């Protein structure tokens, strides 16, 4: 029986497909490549930091390496990671539709992503950028590295993200299965809706910021360069107006996956469906008000106070979601499979990330902790511990559905514990180092911090090994012959009602929905 993978053969049938499932798989492969490149850069960074003086890289090369790590991880991996891969593949299936609203636009957004990635990689070859992924002026307008190339690449990647957002909004509004009202949609779709709103409303401001940066660098019109009358803090306002909503583009789909995983592995209805749905939208809206907490040390005191207050407000909806998930586990029948292990890992790490966010939200504390390793640890706990753990949980949860193969549960547990211990070893030490005063983006440091850096580097090796183990057993699962069942976890959402690798035309007869997505124990009509 032909499924969407064996539908047509040949590379062209993949590169010019209009099928949302194939586009999702292509994104998955490109995301892995970007993650490998960014991860490799991270391992070299950590290796260099083993000692204060030069081991591998000179100061300039180190700066280029951490910019590469930041830019590739943020723009090429984590922003498109969940919406473009799992979102593209499962949004239509969870809605009971056969494709997204604009398939050609979907393919165009993948090709734009490839073009943007090409520019970023080209900038690496042409003497890569050494400004940090934030491109702060006046350094980015005065350095002699290939800033224009990288900035064009990121500009193009922004449009891929906007087009995905536009696509998802139209799909969710108009392609829902008959009977599926807004409150019968799975919560993963709710979070993708909130993410798409942010993607559409925030990314263009990044586009205009980068255009102005390029014009400033080439013609020097003097709006960011202080020597000719500009204001560098204005660039920071422009940049963070996009970049803080961008971190919610990263975390919201991750929270969406958590709802799917926790209900299936506790075989229990979600606790507080409406609360979680509304908190996704609340996060999407408040995320536009808080960008100033990245500028506490450079903006005026009145603005800092307002931003600090609003930053605390945005913490509340995240807290509500975490409490709801814990409540869902209460009296659940819990099955500790790999996806659920990653869910528990997510809860553990995301809660630590959230609490350290409270530290950084308080004005006085942030003045001490701003631009130190405390901030580095905070955003790795929230982005790695949050988004990446949810991405891995989602991938393991939907792996049998996507490829019709099952991965080995035992190997998955080994990889989980390797990554969990490695991650905590790498980044918890950085909290201590950061609050002690160790600034970030430092190539060499004072003697006393060496022990912390060495522990952190050894931890990063564990992380590297963990991901290699994961890669091995995932590829092994693809090569194994035996077919995974259609619904291995006994989930109720629509994508589990169709055969494992779904056909090209997934739903022969559009399903009719008459009850909520997670109503376990309610007899089927």
């Amino acid at each position, binding site marked *: 029986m032909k499924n969407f993978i064996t539908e047509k053969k040949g590379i062209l049938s993949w590169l010019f497909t209009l099928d949302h499932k194939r586009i999702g798989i292509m994104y998955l492969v490109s995301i892995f490549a970007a993650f490998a490149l960014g991860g490799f850069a991270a391992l070299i960074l950590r290796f260099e930091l083993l000692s204060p003086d030069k081991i591998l890289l000179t100061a300039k090369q180190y700066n280029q390496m951490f910019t590469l790590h930041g830019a590739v991880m943020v723009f090429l991996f984590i922003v498109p990671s969940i919406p473009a891969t799992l979102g593209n593949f499962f949004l239509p299936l969870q809605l009971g539709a056969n494709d997204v609203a604009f*398939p050609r636009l979907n393919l165009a957004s993948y090709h734009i992503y490839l073009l943007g990635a090409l520019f970023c990689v080209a900038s690496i070859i042409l003497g890569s950028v050494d400004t940090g992924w934030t491109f702060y002026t006046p350094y980015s307008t005065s350095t002699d590295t290939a800033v224009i190339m990288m900035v064009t690449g990121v500009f193009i990647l922004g449009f891929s993200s906007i087009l995905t957002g*536009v696509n998802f909004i139209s799909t969710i509004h108009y392609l829902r299965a008959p009977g599926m009202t807004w409150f019968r949609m799975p919560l993963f779709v709710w979070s993708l809706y909130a993410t798409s709103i942010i993607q559409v409303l925030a990314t*263009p401001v990044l586009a205009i910021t980068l*255009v102005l940066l390029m014009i400033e660098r080439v013609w020097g*019109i003097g709006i960011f360069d202080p020597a000719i*009358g500009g204001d560098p803090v204005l660039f920071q306002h422009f940049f963070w107006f996009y970049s803080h909503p961008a971190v919610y583009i990263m975390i919201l789909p991750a929270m969406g996956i958590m709802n799917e995983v926790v209900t299936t592995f506790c075989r229990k209805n979600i606790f507080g469906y409406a609360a979680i749905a509304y908190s996704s939208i609340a996060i999407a809206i408040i995320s536009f008000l808080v960008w100033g907490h990245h500028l506490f040390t450079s903006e005026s005191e009145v603005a800092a106070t307002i931003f600090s207050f609003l930053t605390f407000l945005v913490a509340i909806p995240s807290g509500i979601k975490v409490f709801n998930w814990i409540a869902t586990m209460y009296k659940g029948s819990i099955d500790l499979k790999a996806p659920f292990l990653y869910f528990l890992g997510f809860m553990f790490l995301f809660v630590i990330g959230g609490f350290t966010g409270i530290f950084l939200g308080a004005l006085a504390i942030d003045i001490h902790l701003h631009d130190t390793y405390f901030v580095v640890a905070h955003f790795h706990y929230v982005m790695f511990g949050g988004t990446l753990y949810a991405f891995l949980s989602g991938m393991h949860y939907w792996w049998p559905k996507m490829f019709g193969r099952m991965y080995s549960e035992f190997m998955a547990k080994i990889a989980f514990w390797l990554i969990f211990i490695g991650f905590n070893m790498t980044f918890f030490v950085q909290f201590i180092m950061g609050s002690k005063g160790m600034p970030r983006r430092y190539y060499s440091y004072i003697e006393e911090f060496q022990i912390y850096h060495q522990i952190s580097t050894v931890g990063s090796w564990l992380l590297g090994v963990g991901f290699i183990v994961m890669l091995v057993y995932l590829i092994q699962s693809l090569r194994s012959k035996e077919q995974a069942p259609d619904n291995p976890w006994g989930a109720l959402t629509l994508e589990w009602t169709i055969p494992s690798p779904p056909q090209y035309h997934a739903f022969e007869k559009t399903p009719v929905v008459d009850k909520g997505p997670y109503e376990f124990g309610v007899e089927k009509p």
Partner: protein
Amino acid sequence: MQQIQKRKLPHYFNNAHQEFEAAKLGMWAFMAQEILFFSGLFVAYGVFRYFNPEMFIYASRLLDWKLGFINTIFLIISSFTMVMSVYHIQHNNRTKSLVNLTATFFLAAVFLIIKTFEYKAKFDHGYYPGMLFSGEGAFSSLHIFFGLYFTITGLHALHIIVGMVLIAWLMVRVWNGTVSAEYFTPVEMVGLYWHFVDVVWIFLFPLLYLL
């Protein structure tokens, strides 16, 4: 004019109305993105007007507001002809729609030509953007105004060129019959885009030329 060609509904939509509404919602999401894109430029304009208010008033005197006025009138007429072409295609008289489309196209072209005249006049006074600015002026931060002026009007002109390409593509589709009363979505969408470009100029004209 060729025969109107029948169009098969894509398999994932179950009726034409749903497809039209989805396309319109997608277009409005794209319009929201464009609003935010230009908002960055308006904020930059506002910030630097706040930093040096007298210079902005002095600099806007240097611009020739008569050309700006004629440009605004042309864009409003082009918006009207665009709307009339959508109206006619909905009534299936394709010739009138095509005439209106060509009118919109030429009005846009005239707008760009006037723009080039304005730019040339600026260059003669030496008001080049940013680094190459060598103009005389009572204020030493005059180059910021002209840097912003060229950036904003340049990006707006770029959007007009994209609009003209879209209109040309529409004229071809009206001609070869793939667009008709049953399926006029592309015409409506390009119309929305064109009206947006006109609205941006409506805001730009007073801010840059008159204040």
